[in-house]
């Protein structure tokens, strides 16, 4: 019996101990973040009282730059903090996949709201229409930031109802990567610039007996970037000026027919490509050309691929390419003038010093940096990407646009996998998009 008593007794003691330990250290509501500088340790909360006595005003900055990107932005922030004696930017990374859930939660519960954050350009309409973002015109003016400091396309898009809602950090369009070794072996001297050259090159580079393909067609991601690009190149769009979806236009049909033809007619791509299949084959040197975003640079570098970068070919009538863009936005609830000044100060700094961000492979939106010698010397990727800035196109500025096109990607997926009827698939996608529009009123 003694042993049994002891068991229960020990368990009870353990629980008691744990509770005491927790009660003791559980009270920690905050402590210093991992960022070095010994400035005021204001808690990261909705407290807008402008920082601690005597030391710098703290600005909480949220980004979705998890993974390899994160450290590049961190250098920018660290350098800014070193040279500023008024402000301290507290840099917080959220995981890329859950970023908007966390952000929405902050908006919804009005707690733990960051002072300013990164938002994707095509998400800005959704939040701006709900009056959750602060127009940046005043802030920019005070900090000496002008719209002409940045690439027009991004600034124009962020201009909603005459107000400037987001200041761009970078623009990331679809870009063409190609395997230089395979090109050389096939005797191709320059990357293709139009449909004819592309088809010729891809066919030359395809040899199914070796398991080598000219261009492996993705059936899931990044169709979100590829399909719209092909539509833009015909002078069309996925929504009209009123924000109504236009997914089954002749241009859309032509775009998808072309994609399909690469698999089933020209046979430069294998069938039944799974998610990331084209990336895996590219890494293996079995895929000669791929279209993806500038963020892939890190992966190619690490795999020591001999790759080249170029703007995507013009398959149809004119150049056009889909892009995303990271922007700085400020929540509407931000009313502290001191903090607003600080945000402006930081953004002004970024406009001049985002070269670090460019090192991650992104092409920055700040003209000052784009035109600098440093940027041009970086490496070819960023300059190739920047070439596309003249004709980048973003997603339609329709709130909740993502839910309109969910079906579109599924239909494209089915068509590419099963050699399906293109018009029917796009009609289906259009019907569902209209349904989403109706639900969004």
């Amino acid at each position, binding site marked *: *019996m003694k*042993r*049994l*008593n002891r*068991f*229960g007794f020990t*368990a009870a003691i*353990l*629980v008691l101990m*744990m*509770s005491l*330990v*927790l009660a003791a*250290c*559980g*009270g*920690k*509501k*905050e*402590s*210093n*973040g*991992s960022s*070095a500088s010994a400035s005021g340790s204001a808690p*990261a*909360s909705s407290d807008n009282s402008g920082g601690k006595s005597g030391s710098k005003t703290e600005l*909480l900055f949220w980004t*979705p*730059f*998890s*993974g*390899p*990107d*994160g*450290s590049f932005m*961190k250098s920018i922030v660290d350098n800014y903090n070193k040279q500023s004696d008024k402000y301290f930017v507290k840099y*917080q*990374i*959220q*995981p*890329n*996949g*859950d970023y908007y859930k*966390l952000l929405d*939660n902050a908006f*919804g*519960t009005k*707690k*733990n709201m960051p002072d300013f954050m990164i938002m994707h350009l095509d998400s800005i309409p959704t939040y701006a229409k709900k009056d959750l973002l602060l127009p940046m015109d005043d802030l920019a003016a005070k900090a000496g930031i002008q719209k002409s400091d940045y690439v027009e396309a991004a600034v124009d898009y962020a201009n909603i109802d005459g107000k400037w809602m987001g200041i761009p950090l970078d623009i990331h369009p679809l870009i063409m990567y190609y395997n230089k070794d395979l090109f050389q072996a096939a005797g191709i001297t320059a990357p293709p610039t139009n449909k004819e050259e592309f088809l010729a090159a891809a066919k030359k580079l395809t040899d199914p007996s070796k398991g080598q393909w000219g261009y492996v067609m993705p059936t899931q991601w990044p169709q979100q970037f590829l399909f719209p690009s092909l539509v833009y190149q015909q002078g069309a769009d996925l929504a009209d000026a009123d924000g109504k979806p236009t997914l089954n236009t002749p241009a859309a049909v032509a775009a998808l027919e072309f994609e399909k033809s690469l698999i089933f007619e020209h046979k430069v791509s294998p069938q039944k490509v799974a998610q990331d299949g084209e990336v*895996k084959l590219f*890494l*293996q040197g079995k895929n000669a050309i791929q279209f993806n*975003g500038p*963020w*892939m640079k*890190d*992966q190619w570098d*690490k*795999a*020591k691929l001999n790759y080249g970068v170029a703007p995507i070919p013009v398959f149809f009538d004119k150049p056009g390419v889909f892009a995303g863009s990271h922007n700085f936005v400020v929540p509407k609830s931000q009313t502290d003038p001191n903090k607003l000044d600080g945000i402006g100060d930081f953004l002004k700094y970024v406009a001049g010093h985002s070269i670090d961000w460019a090192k991650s492979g992104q092409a920055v939106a700040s003209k000052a940096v784009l035109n600098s010698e440093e940027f041009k010397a970086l490496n070819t990727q960023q300059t190739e990407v920047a070439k596309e800035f003249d004709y980048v196109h973003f997603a339609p500025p329709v709130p909740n646009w993502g839910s309109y096109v969910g079906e579109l990607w599924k239909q494209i997926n089915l068509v590419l996998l099963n050699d399906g009827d293109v018009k029917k698939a796009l009609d289906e996608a259009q019907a569902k998009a209209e349904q989403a529009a109706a639900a969004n009123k």
Partner: protein
Amino acid sequence: MGTKAKQAGLILIATVLGIFFIVPVIWMVTISLKSDAEAFLPNLSFIPDDPTIVNYTDALSGGDLNVPILRWIYNSLLVSVAGTLIVLAVDALAAYGLARLDVPFKKWLLSLFLSTLMIPGIIWFVPQYVLFQDLGLIGTYHAFYLPFTSSAFGVFLLYQFFRGFPKELEEAAHIDGANKWKIFYAVLLPSSKSILSTLAVLTFMGIFNDYIWPFYASGGNDTMQTLTSGIAVMTQGSYVNSPNKLMALSTIATIPVLVVFLLAQKAIVRGITQSGIK
């Protein structure tokens, strides 16, 4: 039919199955030992040409972002252990009450608890966050483990087990004049080591491996983060992962759970019914 032959046959089957289960794990560890140059190559080789532990040293020292990973490990262990102990205590008491005692509205309570198991967590996720905010618990250790104390799984599991125990020991103790509490901790608990250990392991894992809730619970405080959610930040790239770093971090994150499992193994033995009730 010789039992030795039978054993050999069973071991053979177990080995074949074991290969299916363990090979992917070995592969994960292999990748974690690869340098960047090798890791991004999609070959499926099991032996790194140039094995290195740099991914581990890198991870444990905080990586590019200088994260307090050791503090995270500590946080994770602390809240997982605390949560597990509380869950065990609270669930065992409740399960015993429902299985053996005259709790009023027993059946209703049990149905209520069971039915909440079936409501997907997304419904109460945000309200739970708001509740913790209002209670001022966000950013404290309590926020990390308290939600787990409300799970009905442990109650349900222990309830089924207690129901199945033969009543003789309890009745004997009752005749000896023991009250409910004494019967509980002197008779029932010691006989339940096996299932309690299993519940402990599963609960520990549930708390330790949860990586979504800690984002909300930490309230943005870097040093209050747990290991698994901290890792998600380090490895969930904007669009790509770094496979070798991911695997190294994941291996680090898996080790504590495995240790707990192995420690609990000793208790997972033949239960009370073997201890000679004649």
